[in-house]
């Protein structure tokens, strides 16, 4: 029933985190990992992303979503790493890992934390592209994504 939340500027190794997380959980039958990455698409190419955040609030909010997920889905452990600062295309921004006895709880736990994190964790993205920098608008679908957990 452990929760670990790290907010850092440093790059992280997505695969190494998965292996560390899994290593000490002999009762876990299922681990779900979500990795969010800086992406560039042909219709909207970007070079980098700059993430601003509210440090104390971000830590508290993410710990709360993670703890909620542990209780709601009866998880064995959850770990979240979220970066701030500047990151290049292809680099990871965020990783959420959830471990449980059975698979659906692990999927739901990671999905739940990501849905809340998207709208309620104090991070703001600014894209650095060929035309300069631009703050990313909040997506309506992120706000409605949370509704599936209130059914």
């Amino acid at each position: 029933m452990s929760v670990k939340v790290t907010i850092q500027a440093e790059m992280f190794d997505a695969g190494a985190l998965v292996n560390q997380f899994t290593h000490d959980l002999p009762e876990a039958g299922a681990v779900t990992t979500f990795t969010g990455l800086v992406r560039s698409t042909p219709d909207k190419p970007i070079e980098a992303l700059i993430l601003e955040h509210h440090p104390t609030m971000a830590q508290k909010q993410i710990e709360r979503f993670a703890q909620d997920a542990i209780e709601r889905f009866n998880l064995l452990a959850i770990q979240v790493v979220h970066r701030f600062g500047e990151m290049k295309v292809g680099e990871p921004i965020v990783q959420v890992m959830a471990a449980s006895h059975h698979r659906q709880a692990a999927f739901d736990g990671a999905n739940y934390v990501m849905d809340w994190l998207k709208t309620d964790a104090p991070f703001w993205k600014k894209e650095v592209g060929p035309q300069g920098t631009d703050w990313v608008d909040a997506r309506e679908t992120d706000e409605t994504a949370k509704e599936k957990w209130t059914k």
Partner: protein
Amino acid sequence: MIIRYFAWIRERLNRDTQELDLPNEVKTVEDLLHHLRETDEDFAAVVPPETTIRLALDDELVELDTAIGAAKEVSIFPPMTGG
């Protein structure tokens, strides 16, 4: 009372924090926004009433009608786009 600004609000105001003594009639977060718009031209220009913003008191997200009470910090920011 410390006020913290984030993202494009911080950028356009060109400040990230500010200290302010609140008058007694400022009870709620909404009162604070009115007060800022009345006393601060820059704030009124950057964050007009129709702006979609979100607010936190001491690291907790709050609604417009939440009482400021004994909170030490108010954070003012646009909708979050993390993850």
